[in-house]
Structure formats: C-alpha cells, structure tokens
C-alpha cells in the first residue's frame, strides 16, 4: 500500500515536470513547479530524510517559487 502511494507520488512528479514544460502561462508553471517541489519534499520524507525534506519545502518550494514570481512580475507572464 505504502509502495503504491510512493509510486503514485513518483508518477505525479513526472506528470508535474511534463506539465511545467507544457504550460504556456509562466505563472501557472511556477505554481505547478512549487507543487512539484512539495511532492518532492514529501517523497524525501518518505525516504526518511526529513532534513532535506524541510529544506526543500522551505527553499525549493518556497524561496525558489517566490523568486520566480518576483522575476515574472518584472517581466511578462506568458510564454510566446
């Protein structure tokens, strides 16, 4: 059961990565990227590495997304 959840998470990860690539709206892409990072951090928690799970949640999902948002707000939102 747990194995199935883990595999589901991995599949979700791959789907997120593909969707990030396919989304034309950069803002949505950033949000999906944040979700991707969140899922990644859950997976790491599943792998019993809570330290990096927290760090990824704070830096990967939080700070990186914020930086992306800041940059998008300075530039343009859509990929042409």
């Amino acid at each position, binding site marked *: 059961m747990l194995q199935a959840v883990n*595999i589901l998470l*991995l599949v979700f*990860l*791959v789907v997120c*990565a*593909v969707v*990030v*690539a396919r989304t034309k709206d*950069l803002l949505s*892409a*950033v949000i999906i*990227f944040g979700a*991707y*990072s969140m899922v*990644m951090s859950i*997976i*790491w928690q599943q*792998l*019993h*590495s*809570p*330290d*990096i799970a927290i*760090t*990824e949640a704070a*830096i*990967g999902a939080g*700070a*990186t997304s914020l*930086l*992306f948002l*800041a*940059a*998008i707000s*300075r*530039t*343009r939102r859509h*990929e*042409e």
Partner: protein
Amino acid sequence: MSMEILERLYGNIYYLTSVILFVIGFHTMLTHRNLIKKLMALNIMDTAIFLFFVAIGYRQGGQAPILLPGVTSFVNPVPSALILTGIVISVSFTAFALALVVLLYKHYGTLDSDEIIAIRGKKHV
C-alpha cells in the same frame, strides 16, 4: 533477459524516476526558448539529481538519522548532508539567473532566447 532488466528497473524505480526527470528537464531546457522556462527546467534537473542522491542514501528499514534512543537502523546521512548544500547552490544559481533574466528583459524587451540572439545579431552586422 529483458524481464530481468525490467525487474531491476522496477526495483530501482526511484533512480529511474530521477533519470526520467533529468531527461525531461534537459529536453525542456533544450527545446524551450523562454528563458524563465529554461530556468525551471534547470531546477527540475537539479531536483532530479537530488532525488537520485537521496535515493542512494535510503536503506530498507532505516530511520531518519537522528540519534534518538531506541532507534538502531538509520538511512545514510551523507547524501542528505550533501543535498542540503546542493539545494542552496541551486537556489543561488536560480536567483542570479533570474536577476539576469530581469536585466535581459529590460534591455531586449523579450524573454525569447532566439529573439534575443536575433536582436543581438542584427546589431553586430
């Protein structure tokens, strides 16, 4: 033969996923012209490598490497320690790259790498 390989791949599904993510990120990086998208792809590649590293450190039945009494089996702490560094480096790169993106947009008015090259090329000729 091929069944065996498939089985091994399934056993190593974390590794496999990280490799797939790596390739997806690389593909996005190569084919997309939007600079911010490229940076996201770069981040995806990086996290893929991190996932790979973390998966190396996992041991069946291991617990988080915090030496609390009563716990005897731990996962390998070394990859975690390295990844911590990796994550910080990755965010530093992203931050700087985004600053450059902002500047590029200011100078060229576009985020399309091909267009930027075209504008620059026109000036050169």
